[in-house]
């Protein structure tokens, strides 16, 4: 035993993975025992229990803490264990290898910066050896070593070891994963764990312990462009602090930040911290920070702050590789909650392109479901535009989880942006917002002055459903209540703004909707509640709603659908008024929705969505 005591300056998270019974817990136990890292009496205590129960001592018992784990001789859940070696503190996560506990393996591996993957020399490459290798790559663990265990059972033969190395390297090569080392060991007997094996003089590479020291601390993501997903906005005292964990790049006092997808912008006024002297001037990747801005803009959790030159993508669809852990299968068309960094948005799986068999990487097409522990390629479609990155460029903002009911049921990485039909308008809006010349009165100043936020109330529906009538009544009621509301009637644009268009051009919904949306956008900037109808678009109103939404984004759009009988609703409808209805009651329902959405100040509840006080 050679106990090395040193002061750690950094820490590294490592996960041990591999097929069940290939000896992960034994390796871990041995590593601790041979480096003198076990507490006094721990080894003796476990040995005594084994003697008492009449079973052979195994190093695995040192960390399989649950009674059930020891009785069955398997690891059920990941254990974090700690040891210090040569100036580094290691957190080693022992992941279960049984396929039933794949979600626990994934939880362990998702925390790791490097991995050790075990293969039994006698059994060779098995199902979970492949699955774990593939998942490490999917989870973003690129740094790993392969340990071929139980060499004692095959007489320490080099040819068997070489055969396993060749087979496994070929498998990993198909998805471009490359281990740092292949190490032949016997965890049970301690060969090449902490001490070099005398039985395998043919091997000249590092031991497992040496390999740990060779793993590099994750490359600094600080050199990348900035990504700061907003975690929360606090107003405990006079400061309004935007908090979040920087996932890439750096942020400095004075930086001009753009928040996506809202396109709101402001400069960093200060970096806030408790018990730090002098006050910090910057933050970098990995840090949980808080900043104040020079302008009172309203930003919410889930938006991603970046610099204007290097913005994240914004779309309502992307392609991804997903692993599914849910008790019930993932289904095409079913609704899930998507979480990318701090953003939560409703989504559905628009297409399941293929299921990937991790045994041979064969692809199976034409499935409408993805079963538990399967890996698949999907297209995900979100209800609202979402800011994200491709996982090949940005790890943290390029991956996501899917929540089914109460549980995280799957995870994945974004491989491709899927262009949606709003792309061009969204780009127009972004360019226009970045160049927008502001006066001295900000949008928050107007909100405070007016006692409400700007919003669009859009009445949709077929002919003669009472849209115009109700729009007038709503405008009147809002103004009577002291709000600043304005009825935007499409007819007024037709004869003026649209006078340059030919009759045929005026029949094209896309261009008419674009002009309509841009006018609404100007009115929004004046702080008004814009009340409007889709009348100018006639029966093509469904095609006009989305462009209008895109152009007025991020102002809230309250969509009120009116119909005589039940019919299919346009997407994202907030209020449905079906059949004959009392006018006052109908107006009240729209007003309630305005309150619920935080447009009217009274809606601010115990934990308000909108945190400024009016």
């Amino acid at each position, binding site marked *: 035993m050679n106990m090395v005591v040193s002061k750690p300056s950094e820490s590294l998270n490592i996960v041990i993975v591999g097929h069940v019974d290939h000896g992960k817990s034994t390796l871990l136990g041995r590593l601790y025992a041979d480096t003198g890292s076990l*507490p006094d009496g721990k080894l003796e205590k476990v040995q005594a229990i084994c003697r008492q129960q009449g079973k052979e001592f195994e190093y695995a018992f040192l960390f399989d*803490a649950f009674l059930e784990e020891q009785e069955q001789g398997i690891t059920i859940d990941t254990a974090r264990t700690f040891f210090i070696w040569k100036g580094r*503190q290691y957190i080693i996560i022992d992941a279960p290898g049984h396929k039933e506990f794949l979600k626990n393996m994934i939880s362990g591996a998702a925390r790791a910066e490097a991995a050790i993957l075990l293969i039994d020399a006698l059994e060779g490459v098995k199902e979970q050896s492949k699955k774990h290798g593939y998942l490490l790559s999917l989870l973003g663990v690129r740094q790993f070593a392969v340990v071929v265990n139980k060499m004692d059972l095959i007489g320490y033969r080099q040819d068997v070891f070489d055969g396993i190395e060749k087979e496994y390297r070929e498998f990993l090569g198909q998805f471009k994963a490359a281990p740092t080392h292949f190490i032949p060991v016997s965890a049970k007997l301690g060969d090449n764990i902490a001490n070099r094996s005398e039985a395998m003089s043919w091997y000249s590479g590092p031991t497992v312990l040496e390999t740990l020291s060779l793993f590099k601390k994750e490359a600094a993501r600080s050199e990348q462009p900035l990504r700061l997903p907003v975690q929360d906005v606090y107003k405990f005292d006079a400061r309004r602090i935007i908090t979040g964990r920087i996932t890439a790049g750096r942020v400095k006092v004075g930086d001009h930040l753009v928040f996506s997808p809202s396109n709101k912008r402001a400069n960093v006024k200060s970096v806030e911290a408790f018990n730090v002297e002098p006050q910090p001037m910057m933050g970098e990747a990995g840090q949980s920070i808080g900043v104040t801005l020079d302008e009172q803009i309203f930003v919410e959790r889930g938006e991603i702050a970046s610099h204007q030159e290097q913005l994240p993508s914004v779309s309502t669809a992307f392609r991804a590789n997903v692993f599914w852990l849910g008790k019930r299968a993932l289904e095409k068309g079913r609704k899930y909650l998507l979480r990318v960094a701090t953003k939560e948005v409703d989504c559905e799986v628009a297409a399941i392109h293929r299921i990937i068999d991790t045994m041979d990487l064969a692809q199976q097409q034409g499935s409408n479901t993805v079963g538990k522990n399967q890996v698949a390629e999907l297209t995900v479609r979100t209800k609202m535009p979402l800011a994200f990155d491709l996982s090949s460029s940005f790890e943290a903002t390029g991956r996501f989880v899917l929540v089914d009911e109460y549980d995280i049921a799957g995870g994945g990485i974004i491989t491709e942006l899927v262009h949606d039909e709003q792309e061009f308008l969204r780009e127009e809006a972004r360019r226009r917002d970045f160049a927008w010349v502001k006066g001295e009165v900000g949008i928050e100043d107007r909100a405070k002055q007016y006692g409400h936020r700007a919003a669009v109330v859009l009445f949709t529906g077929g002919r003669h459903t009472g849209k115009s009538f109700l729009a007038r009544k709503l405008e009147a009621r809002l103004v009577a209540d002291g709000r600043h509301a304005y009825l935007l009637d499409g007819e007024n644009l037709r004869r003026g703004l649209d006078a340059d268009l030919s009759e045929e051009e005026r029949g094209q919904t896309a261009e008419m909707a674009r002009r309509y949306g841009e006018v609404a956008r100007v009115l929004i900037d004046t702080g008004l509640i814009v009340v409007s109808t889709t009348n100018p678009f006639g029966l093509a109103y469904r095609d006009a709603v989305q462009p209008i939404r895109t152009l007025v984004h991020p102002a809230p759009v309250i969509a009120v659908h009116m119909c005589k009988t039940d019919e299919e609703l346009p997407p994202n409808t907030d209020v449905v008024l079906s059949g004959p209805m009392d006018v006052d009651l109908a107006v009240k329902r729209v007003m309630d929705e305005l309150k619920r959405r935080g447009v009217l100040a009274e809606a601010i509840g115990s934990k308000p969505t909108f945190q400024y006080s009016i």
Partner: protein
Amino acid sequence: MKHLRQLEDQSVYILREAYKHFDNLGMLWSMGKDSTVLLWLARKAFFGHVPFPLLHVDTSYKIPAMIEYRDRLAREWGLDLVVGQNKEALAAGMNHTLGRVVCCTALKTNGLKQLLEHKGYTGVILGVRADEEGTRAKERYFSPRDKHGDWDFRDQPPELWDQYKTTFPPGTHIRIHPLLDWTEINIWEYIKLENIPFIDLYLDKGDGTRYRSLGCAPCTTPIKSTAKSVDDIIEELRHTTVAERSGRAQDEGRGMEMLRKDGYM
């Protein structure tokens, strides 16, 4: 000290996630070194504020100096302190001589359950660490408890990257563990780095003993040590191979697994 800042950033992130997702949130504070560091991290996360109540399950057998320390910090830092106690069990004469697991279950596990139920907390932040003891090594950062407060360790939710379980069926609650990745040495290193006030029972005051882990007076014994400062403690821990909780009687046999399965901290 970069590793301490990394631990701090992670814990602060977890605390902010907890605050964002749970309307009725509380933090357990036993006045020990771990939950005091946790309290400090909350002040870091919320810029000097602690925007939720601190809960203390008082068994009535705590060392008196701990209660004095508790009340002093609560005053100085403006904390919202909520003290719970299983008065029925105490009135019926519960104490450790009736059995340690029995006593811990009644005064701590059940005391905690009563407090959570009474106040309707749906999220509880605790300062448990993975290196303390085997079952804690297997915990999640966000760990659900069922209607009875039980822990189903056979079926823990997946935890991916920085995404935690923050939704839960009615009647259940979530235990949040921001300190899982901290070791005992990290705790003391951080206390030193940030100059956090701690209770002096952890130091040798001349009789050659100190407490390494604090609990109820009858079931916690001091260790032999001449550590008179935080530096001394860190130095001592670097060389020791004695388990931290060796002075805690409840850890004997399978005590902790049984206690924790039923909702112990």
